[in-house]
């Protein structure tokens, strides 16, 4: 029954996963560019964001059509709304990747501090892990796994505080100071990516149970 309708629902879910894959590539690319201080790669990451945005807009249009033509209800409706929210979250993650790339471009000529870069790499790996886990949990409707993202988020936050601490204690040249401040913003972007992954996890619970809860409160 309603074969085409079910196919449409499956299609938007698959599309979401594909959008996720694209976004992860962007984040990976931005991080690699930062480590290698590769300006060309930065430009590619920035240009690639157009594609991510385009994906998001097409997703939005498809959902508009799906809602108008098929009038989904109950679990189907929650799924459609969750996919829409997650698409927005992914698009924001893409924007953060662009931010990192732009900052890398700005500071490409400066001398990096390796322990700081390692810390950022740690954060990036964790963030990537979180986004992957969030998308997997969504695909399998695994609420427990989605909830566990909060712990990973904790780790990112700790690393973030360490990075800020390191920058503040740097006695350095004005260039190094500028580099350090930019890296704080990079760290902040990575931390936001982690938060977005948690948001995606919250949508998993919404689809599975119909209830929406913040996994962690705003004070953190």
């Amino acid at each position: 029954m309603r074969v085409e309708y079910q196919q449409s629902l499956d299609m938007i879910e698959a599309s979401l996963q594909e959008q996720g894959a694209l976004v992860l590539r962007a984040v990976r690319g931005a991080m690699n560019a930062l480590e290698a201080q590769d300006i060309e790669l930065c430009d590619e990451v920035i240009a690639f964001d157009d594609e991510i945005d385009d994906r998001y807009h097409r997703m939005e249009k498809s959902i508009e059509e799906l809602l108008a033509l098929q009038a989904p209800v109950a679990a189907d409706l929650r799924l459609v709304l969750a996919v829409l929210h997650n698409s927005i979250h992914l698009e924001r993650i893409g924007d953060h990747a662009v931010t990192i790339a732009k900052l890398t471009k700005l500071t490409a000529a400066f001398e990096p501090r390796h322990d700081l870069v390692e810390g950022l790499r740690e954060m990036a790996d964790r963030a990537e892990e979180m986004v992957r886990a969030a998308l997997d949990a969504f695909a399998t409707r695994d609420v427990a796994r989605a909830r566990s993202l909060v712990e990973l988020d904790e780790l990112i936050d700790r690393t973030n505080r360490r990075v800020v601490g390191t920058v503040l204690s740097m006695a350095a040249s004005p260039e190094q100071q500028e580099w350090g401040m930019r890296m704080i913003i990079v760290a902040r972007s990575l931390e936001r990516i982690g938060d977005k992954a948690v948001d995606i996890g919250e949508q998993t619970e919404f689809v599975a149970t119909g209830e929406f809860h913040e996994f962690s409160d705003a004070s953190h």
Partner: protein
Amino acid sequence: MTQMETPSIDSSRIAEISLSSSREEIERREQVFTVEDLGVAYSGNVALAGVTMNVYANTVTAFIGPSGCGKSTYIRCFNRMNDLIVGAAVTGSVRYHASDLYGREVDPVEVRRRVGMVFQKPNPFPKSIFDNVAFGPRVLGWKKGLDERVEQSLRQAALWDEVKDRLSESALGLSGGQQQRLCIARALATEPDVILMDEPASALDPIATGRIEDLMHDLKREYTIVVVTHNMQQAARVADMTAFFSVDMHEDGRGRHGVLVEYDATTKIFTQPADRRTEDYVTGRFG
């Protein structure tokens, strides 16, 4: 090193998560019916006026609108069933695959073989299931291969499995939904080109309705379907193109007749209708 060059997913392939075909794509298909300035009057009373539109091959085209807007009258023009009503007069032109449907040399009986019809209330003949489906071929003189024809039609109507062991039983013993699928099988048996459906599911429960809608999706691969429905959600679910009809006052101020307000891809009608009247109707603010 360029890592972003070729993204591993070809986004153009998944391009349109298009849930229904676009208008441009549909308009490239063959025109099955070309209607120009069509009007219908019953004994002088104008029921419908000024309809101009095309029906395209292998699509489901839905006619929606409030009651009295002439959509049933309109669909009956396509198989010349209006000829049977005393005092009915059709003006304007209807072309079927580039020939004039109302031309002098055209035999209405032959038209009805090619343009089948399913009615609102299932109307199986008081005969066996087999005889019901075989009626069309028999009156046309197709005596050979009747068994295969009946089986194929019943399969296409998604009814074969349910009735294959009781073909000689009376058709009146079937449930409402089954009877309607039988009527569809009956229409398919004459190997038509187009199937007209006048509110085919309005007398059926939701499950039977769902089956008919699924059937329409399947059938449009081989046939062209035109359906009148008063349920606009149904049109949203099944139709590729949707035509919205409404009522208008006569020019002389006396009486009302039906008019075609908007005809476009279903997606457009339900997301961004061009006409205010369409918007009012689909959002349920009509009246």
